[in-house]
């Protein structure tokens, strides 16, 4: 995983030395902090906070929900990764977890939930059904939610094991860390083309 903050000590010390040389000032106040502060870019810090405090909205419809529960449960404990607290109103959530088969009947509701979420927001397609329709290829089932909303991460499996979910979450966190201002991580839409 990418290091978020620059460790104090040598790096920060070097920085202070250069600062002192450049300004010619004693910088007494800064030195008084010793090793107890961190230097980072503001954008890094914001993304770091975001990636470790996801508020997922679990849009749970079907069998994958069983494994979603396990992931949240005591053994696998998604809380260790800072994504434990589900918000059941889209207005308070920033991570839409689409868990389970999406049928044509429920598709408008999913889209509405997604529209109601505030930016920045991310979408996880949890399981085979949401990624491609999974085992169902018939009149009732949407062949992948990326035909109706953008998706940032696909987790394969029918249903994915909790280990796979956690792995997916970590991958998403890595990508969120790399986001900058207007530059969001690429999302996929429709036939796999980036939007």
């Amino acid at each position: 995983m990418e290091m978020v903050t620059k460790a104090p000590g040598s790096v920060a010390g070097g920085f202070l030395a250069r600062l002192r040389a450049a300004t010619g000032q004693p910088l007494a106040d800064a030195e008084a902090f010793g090793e107890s502060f961190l230097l980072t870019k503001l954008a890094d810090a914001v993304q770091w906070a975001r990636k470790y405090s996801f508020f997922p909205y679990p849009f749970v419809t079907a069998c994958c929900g069983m494994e979603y529960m396990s992931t949240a449960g005591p053994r696998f404990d998604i809380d260790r990764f800072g994504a434990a607290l589900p918000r059941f109103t889209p207005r308070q959530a920033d991570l839409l977890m689409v868990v389970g088969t999406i049928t044509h009947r429920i598709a408008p509701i999913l889209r509405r939930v997604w529209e109601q979420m505030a930016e920045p927001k991310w979408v996880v397609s949890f399981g085979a059904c949401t990624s491609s329709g999974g085992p169902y290829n018939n009149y009732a089932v949407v062949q992948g939610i990326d035909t109706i909303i953008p998706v940032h991460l696909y987790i394969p499996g029918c249903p994915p094991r909790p280990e796979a979910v956690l792995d997916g979450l970590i991958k998403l966190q890595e990508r969120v860390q790399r986001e900058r201002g207007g530059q969001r991580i690429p999302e996929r839409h429709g036939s796999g083309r980036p939007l």
Partner: protein
Amino acid sequence: MPNNDRLLSIIRGRCAEAVIRTDDYRGDATVVIRPERLLEIARVLRDDRELAFDLLLDVTCVDYLGQQPRFELVYHFYSTRHRHRLRLKARVPESDPTIDSLVPLWVGANWLERETYDMYGICFRGHPDLRRIYLYEEFEGHPLRKDYPKEKRQPLIGPGSKGTYKPRPPEIPHAHRVEGMLGAELMRVQLGPSHPATHGTVRIVLDLDGETIVNADVEIGYLHRGFEKECESGFYYQAIPYTDRLNYSSAILCNVGYCMAVEKLFGVEVPLRGQFVRVIGGEISRIADHLLCIGATALELNAFTPFLYALEARELAWDLINALCGARVTSNFVRIGGVSADLPEGFAELCQQNFKRILELVADAEGMLLENPVFRARMEGVSIMSPERLIAYGVTGPLLRAAGVDLDLRRAEPYLIYDQLDFDVPLGSQGDNLDRFLVRLTELRQSIRIVEQCLRLIPPGPVDVDDPALRLPPKGRVFNRMEDMINQFKLVTEGPKPPPGEVYFAIESANGELGYYLVSDGTGKPYKCRARTPSFSNTQPLAEMVRGRLLADIVPTFDMINMIGGECDR
């Protein structure tokens, strides 16, 4: 064994002119009748003392495209008093696909007929509310008709849609237009379809007077995934993974029911050891299902700790399933003619160890819940329904047993090796939510007892039938013997071919009677593969159970019904 000859002769005697023919195939009694006499015969079936068919299990239809008349309506009945079954069939033509509704006799026919209307376009004369149930009003055509292409989609939004979709305000048909408190208007509220307490996708539309529910309408179908259409398009063995996804919290039970129905069609029975393995797998599934139900109820009544306990206990049950077949949820464990694998080494010890811990966790969770006054207040005396009414709705399983009706198919019609096992069937007395909860809790412990007995009694021997028409030969033989190679090739490419005919077979799943109705036309694919799922019938009385009660009572009632989306919406 029920005496079908006697049953059929009674029916022929009672309504001679209305009956076209009767038959008895593989132990299923069938009566074919003239469609215009349906209501009259149904009344006799229900009210005659010797027949007493009080439970309408299923209504469905088979589309015989190219035959005249085209549609065959199929009704399945059960008598809780005499414990016998009957299938009633009547044909209606394509030009006028109309038949009388059975709602005046069984309220439970309401949703079943709506489903048949939705899927096949059959009109039911006298039905109070003939709307689509699974699909949406914008959908054109009836997908289970044989001439509806499987992959013809009619999306509401996104690619291929007309782009004209507008959400409609929620309606409640036949809503009471009463005035609320202080003459104010009633408030219309929607619970769902994406609500934390509807842990499936269901929408409950309510009219509230203050906090009291005046009208309620339960809308299901958000998870309709075309189970039947998928099964009909593949070989018999290809349907097994879809059965996993019916009741995904107890997948092995769904597998067992389906495979046994196919075996009934073939007229074969698996060897004794195979039967034991099926019971072991099935009961562990039942344990996991009840644990989920108990845990989710606790969670939704705001008791988070017992939920975590129940979830950990379910993990332990899943560890056993994982050891059996390598999957946790969608196990795909049972095969037509056997099971995918024998018990793994050391399974008995693993069971012993995990059961011990499960019982500890359950005891802890139980203590925390039952001694909690809030939990008790929300469960005790809530949503009582009389046994007669439940039966009229077609309710089975723990929900019915909590009302004191002793109906457990493992006892009533023992299949597999259940008649050799010693277990109790817990019954409730009040029929309130607390009884439903306690029944599940006790059943869970009984299931552990069953598995322990099975592990003690299981005999050595093969788990699969030795029949190349059903079960793949062992790989070693396939590579070395021409004949086995051909058998494998034929089975995989053409599917197992049962003789033409039709059967219904039911097991006691975690939520009640899970039955499969299969029609074979002699090819490797089922002509019709219908699952009679308990959640569907069990969810129907919800609206009536909560009417007149407080809004907050919906949550525990819905939890105790244990609606599983895949099973209810198929």
